[in-house]
């Protein structure tokens, strides 16, 4: 066989990881591997990377902490199960904990990571919608320093991120759920576990005096990237959540998404579901 064996690195310090990311050949980053790994190993003869950088020994990346009282900081190698079980996540961003519990099943949840779910760039990823609705940001670290990027600016195209090849996604920062706010999440999949989403969506809504004061709407599997429905959010802001608002929001949401037909579902159905989810969330507001 002419292929050279792959170099496998597993640093224990972030600085070392960032140094390796700048090296040649540039390694592919491996967190839990639930998305990447089968690409290399499931089909015989699939191409394999020349170098792999494993994050599994970077203990500092598997943390969940409250910073400055208003932001939940979740390290990139926290697993979905970590999110499901974390009291902090459940109180600060309940939709995120719920979303993590719908990914795959126990085995996948024990292995897949927040960072991987985002950095993989799949439009069908289940964590971006509640993160988008909460206006989360990500921390990208490199030898040049760390920068913070709003999640809804991170996805620049189909499976494309605003991440330089030498940058590592090290954490997600999620604004804590404000008092009086609520979140909703729904994944519509091909079955009730081990499913890739047909449509996945989340909202975070702040009500003040019976009026929608702030709203975040995040969706997946209905466009080339995870989507934030900013125009609809602007339209909803300041309105009362009555039947009329709900119905109009449904139509606007359906119009705002750009799903496709594929082997899992149809564009029409996905469009309809997107609208219907938004309508239900608004109708169910107190």
């Amino acid at each position: 066989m002419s292929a050279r064996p792959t170099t496998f690195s597993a640093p224990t310090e972030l600085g070392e990881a960032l140094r390796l990311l700048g090296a040649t050949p540039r390694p592919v980053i491996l967190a839990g591997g639930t998305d990447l790994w089968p690409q290399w190993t499931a089909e015989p003869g699939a191409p394999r990377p020349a170098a792999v950088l494993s994050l599994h020994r970077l203990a500092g990346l598997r943390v969940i902490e409250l910073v400055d009282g208003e932001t939940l900081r979740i390290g990139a190698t926290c697993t979905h199960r970590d999110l499901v079980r974390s009291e902090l996540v459940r109180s600060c961003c309940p939709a995120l904990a719920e979303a993590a519990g719908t990914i795959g099943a126990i085995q996948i949840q024990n292995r897949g990571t927040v960072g991987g779910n985002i950095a993989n760039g799949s439009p069908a990823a289940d964590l971006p919608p509640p993160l988008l609705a909460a206006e989360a940001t990500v921390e990208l670290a490199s030898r040049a320093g760390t920068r913070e990027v709003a999640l809804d600016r991170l996805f620049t195209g189909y499976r494309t991120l605003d991440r330089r090849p030498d940058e590592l996604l090290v954490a997600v920062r999620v604004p804590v759920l404000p008092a009086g706010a609520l979140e909703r999440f729904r994944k519509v999949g091909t079955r009730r576990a081990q499913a890739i989403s047909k449509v996945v969506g989340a909202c975070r809504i702040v009500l003040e005096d019976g009026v929608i004061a702030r709203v975040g709407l995040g969706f997946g599997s209905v466009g080339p990237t995870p989507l934030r429905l900013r125009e609809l959010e602007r339209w909803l802001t300041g309105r009362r959540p009555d039947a009329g608002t709900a119905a109009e929001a449904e139509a606007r949401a359906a119009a705002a998404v750009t799903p496709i037909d594929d082997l899992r579902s149809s564009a029409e159905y996905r469009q309809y579901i997107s609208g219907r989810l938004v309508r239900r969330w608004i109708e169910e507001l107190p």
Partner: protein
Amino acid sequence: MIGRNVTRADSQDKMAGATRYTADIAYPEMLHGVTVRAPMAHGRIRAIRRREDAGVDWSRIVFATAQEIPGQKTVQMIQADMPFLAWDEVLYKGEPVAVVAAPSPAEAEAARQAVVVEMDPLPTILTLEELVRRHEQRAPGLEELSRWHVGHGDVAAALAGADVVLEDSYTTPHQEQAYLETNAMIAVPEGDGRMRVEGSLQCPYYVAPAVAKMLGTDLDHLHVRALPMGGAFGGKEDFPSLLGGHAALLAHLSGRPVRMVLGRAEDVAYTTKRHPSWTRIRAGAKRDGTLCGVEIDTVFDGGAYVTMSPVVLSRGAIHAAGAYLWPAVSIDAVAYRSHTPPNGAFRGFGVPQTIYAIECHMDRLARACGMEPHIFRMKNRLKPGDRTATSQILDETVASREVLEAALSMSGFEEKRRTLGAARAGGGRVARGIGAAFYWHGAGFTGGGEAKISARVALDLCDDGRAHVRVSSTEMGQGSHTVLPQVVAETLGLPLERVVVDPPDTALVPDSGPTVASRTTMIVGGELVTCAREARARLLEVTARRLGRDPGRLTVEAGEVRTTEGEVLGELGPLLVQALREEGARRWTFESQHRLAPHIRWDEATHTGDAYATYAWGCTVAEVEVDLDLYEVRVPRVWVAADIGRAVNPVLARGQVEGGTLQALGYALSEEVGVRPDGGLLRHRFQTYILPTTLDSPRIEVRLLEVPYGRGPGGAKGLGEMPMNGGAPAVANAIEHALGVRIRDLPITAEKIFHALGDGVGGQIGAEKRGLS
């Protein structure tokens, strides 16, 4: 023993991971084989080239095309039309064209990738839709693989005299068996021109003649052994002859053992599936609900080669009019070729397709007569003495009333039929419904099939104090290697631990026929009862002689030989050993061969007469919930009443009903393969082919009923396939009850419900029109 919940003999090893399935087995010097496949769905092969520039050391690779096949180049099945390796015309994308073997899987894979198959394309027909379009228009280009007509009476006149006539068509897609263990075979040269082929296979006596012919040898030099299987469901009935042939060819050329294990994506993409079907039914009834006549036209997509299509189609046709009494019936069934992987056997074998159609239709016909569907079914059900579509007069082993009554009462059907349907739960956002399906399933091979098979079984009483069952029946999880010993132990009087099943190896066991068609307990078990009776008589006779007793006053009880007065003469096992020793024998062999019951008359050409010696009967009831926003269907509960004659092992029998029912629910709601424009199968991975998980499966309540069949052990009929027949129409009928709309094409996905209820993004508008929100 019969009727006891004996724990499986093999469960300890299976749970501990000690059972050796084919992929767990390796031999010294073993090579790994893989299949090189055609890149186009239809065309002529121009060249098969091995690339020299791909980094492959061809001197380490064993490579074979059809040219290297010593004997018959096609696989011996019902017909011998399918090549082991295509050499001229290719009829499906992925058709095997060459095989390679190498010392490691990685090298074999690299070699596979380095073979180029050049082809000139030919026109394709790829979908059921296309077959049906041409069929209905009588357009040219269709190639018939099989055709049957079943029926009697003047249907036209019957329909003309009906008060209500209903016509519609229904379709079902491919269904993948999805055994957890993929197809795998090993061929091992044994020296002196002998070879052993072993692997995950249901029918050693199908594989052996096929591979022997390919090698140009005979069954004295080629034997086939079935290894423990991780599921099969029909998917390992005929395919192993092809894969076994490939492994054997490579072993023959190299002189080394060769193992071939399919990857999952390869297995789903290229092995046999359930035939897609289209069925049009035109049925008429009187206003009072009496059936008048039915005309059925059914098209099955056979895929590229004949394989099992004639038998699948036959079974589908025989059952197509449902378990009902029709004064006049006409069923025309045809299977056409399409340029897709050949379809084959999958639990139910044609019946799930046709029963789906008729059971959906009967619900609607009932309502058209203003009758509740369960009353309509009860009124028209087949009874003892009734004439079936093949003009068989049914005997007393008909359990139609029993299963209907049991299922309807278990489920509270009548009451729920009134209270669900129009009612709404979940704040008005959930629709609920209940539906039933009533069905039958012929036990054993169709008509003359069992006569052709003439199953042979053997029972050895050996000087290890044990009875050895020698049959070609294989264990694929259904429990045959537990149930057959139970049957023998009961009849013989030996304790169960002293009854063992010898490996199903054609060098060791006679041809008991294939492990298919719900026949193993009934037919093979039935013949073993005969052997066991003879064995017991012989043992008593010899023991009586030895001990100077009157054989007429000896009996067997609780594993001991006793006199009829109750005196214990000894334990059966040791007495057996002594008896053999006295005779200087290592074993006594008892053999039996199945003969069709003399009253069975079947004309294959006209498909008239006694299609099956007996039938199993069943009724499935399903309750559904449909989310009226998302159109997701949930099935919280299913009830099944199944008459199986006699449950030899009730726990195992229930296991068959529960497992088959869930497969039927997957068929109903989520399983669909699809065909791509290039002829490849679309959903060929476990990520995309949607099998139900624990969270997608209902509580299943099973009631086993026993209307015994005299020739089956303890009265047992066939069981394995029947549970597959009811789940899909029961769910479809329940969904119609819940939503007021009929989806006729499986699977019934949320998307289909959405499109049926709504009109695009205004889905809400459509739902409101029907008063559903």
